[in-house]
């Protein structure tokens, strides 16, 4: 009995090495963002120059502004549509909607990217830009919001809604006074998750951006295609901080979203 409760040192050793594997590369990126050298090879001295350079880079600032606008709007759209989908899929036994909403989450991003590229250029004859990026981000975020909202609804006692209906509440009243207050943490968590997914997205944005518009991930991509420079480390560190704080907020609002499923 005693021995089965103790974890073997081998398991601990493996576990800690995997954690190290996950963290060391990122720590290296952060570490060299403060290094006073053009090369990410040797510690020379502490500096904030790379950050200063970043804030003087107009392209980077424009890209940051674009990223924020896109993330706000697509998170708003995805939260609205995703909450509706989550409610509809949970409440009514629908067959087509789950397929439509959950498939984009499961398939390789490049497929959604190229099919939307075809759609916007060949079918709608639109010029790519902010609008196409926002629509594309909304499309793949809807499913994530729906998953979170549905998970919340599944964990709840159906009799609450039945009670509201028996007391004569209309579907709208039931939603407004019973359902919405109960699912609010899931809706907020879904919104934050969409925001994070949008601001971090590279693949779909890559196909949707066209020539004129850039976002932070696109900027990072074009920088690392040219050369490894500590400026990339600095923007990476800042982006990490932003996502971390969003995750922290999510964990305060809806702790269950950070457990279990990916």
């Amino acid at each position, binding site marked *: 009995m005693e021995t*089965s409760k103790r974890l073997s040192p081998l*398991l601990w050793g493996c576990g800690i090495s995997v954690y190290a594997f996950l963290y060391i590369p990122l720590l290296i990126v952060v570490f060299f963002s403060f290094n006073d050298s053009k090369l990410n090879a040797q510690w020379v001295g502490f500096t904030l120059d790379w950050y200063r350079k970043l804030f003087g880079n107009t392209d980077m600032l424009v890209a940051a502004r674009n990223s924020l606008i896109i993330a706000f709007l697509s998170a708003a759209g995805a939260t609205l549509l995703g909450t509706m989908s989550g409610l509809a899929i949970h409440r009514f036994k629908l067959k087509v909607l789950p397929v439509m909403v959950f498939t984009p989450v499961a398939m390789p991003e490049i497929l959604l990217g190229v099919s939307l590229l075809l759609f916007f250029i060949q*079918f709608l004859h639109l010029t790519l830009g902010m609008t196409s990026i926002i629509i594309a981000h909304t499309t793949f975020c809807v499913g994530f919001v729906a998953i979170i909202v549905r998970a919340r609804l599944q964990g709840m006692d159906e009799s609450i809604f039945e009670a509201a209906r028996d007391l004569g509440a209309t579907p709208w009243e039931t939603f407004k006074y019973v359902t919405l207050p109960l699912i609010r943490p899931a809706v907020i968590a879904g919104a934050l998750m969409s925001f994070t997914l949008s601001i971090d997205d*590279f693949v779909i944005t890559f196909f949707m951006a066209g020539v004129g518009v850039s976002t932070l991930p696109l900027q990072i991509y074009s920088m690392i295609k040219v050369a490894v420079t500590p400026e990339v480390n600095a923007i*990476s560190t800042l982006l990490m901080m932003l996502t971390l704080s969003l995750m922290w907020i999510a964990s305060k609002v809806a702790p269950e979203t*950070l457990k*279990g499923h*990916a």
Partner: protein
Amino acid sequence: MSKPKDSTRFARWAVSMPPMLFMTLFFALPSLIMAVGSFMIPGDTGGLAPLFPILTPHINPHDGLQESGLTIENYRTFFSDTVYAWIFLKSFFVAGLTTLICLLMAYPLALLIARSPKHKRDLLVLLVILPFASNFLVRVYAWMIILGPFNLLFTNVAVILGMVYVHLPFMILPLYTNLEKHDPILLDAGQDLGATKWQRFWHVTFPLSLPGIYSGSALVFIPVLGMFAIPEILGGKDSMLVGNLIKEAFLATRDWPFGSMVSMMLTLAVLGVAALMSWLSKAGRFQPR
């Protein structure tokens, strides 16, 4: 019981219609266009040639080439040149190897978290999720810094490492979710019956964790199969995968019908893998334990 049937019907319609319309327009329709596009002819300036008339394709009298309508030419090109079959095979190999390495790394960690005291588990899971807080490109870039001095940058080893690093959490989390549900009493029973540690693992824990392995494998295998950025950033000339083939067709050579065809082949591959995984996890449930 006079249920407000009309209002329920209206609620059903009001809630499901907007997302249904949106996803039809921006997911189903584009996918359909891509499917049709894979049977089309490239336009003069890239993109797709006009589709109509479909039934009486227009043939250019000068060079005898088809200029509109539908064709199976793209698929014929794909199956007539072993280059494409080779790229698909290689992508499957890279995805398979990445999945295997992820599984070998994720299993001990997931087991460790699942067998830790309850109050520590949330923190340990959070430590797995946190690296997600960094951008995907940042995580790839980190390996550029690390591998540079070892002369491993722009090789297939770098590609595999990058793939494993980016997708590892997708394997850890479903495995942990599964392992956490195992009743420890089963292991105690095994021990009482005289089973050694390894016997208990192979005959109790491992078979029970198969559904977790299958869902984790699908979550790693499928995105790796379509990945183009990691081979492009960390790989060399010979690191081209299906994703790169699609990207090149759409953005470099601008042969969109060909790109659509490769995308359709990738879709089929993904559907095949997903079907296999769900069949495996269903079949696993009927295994004698």
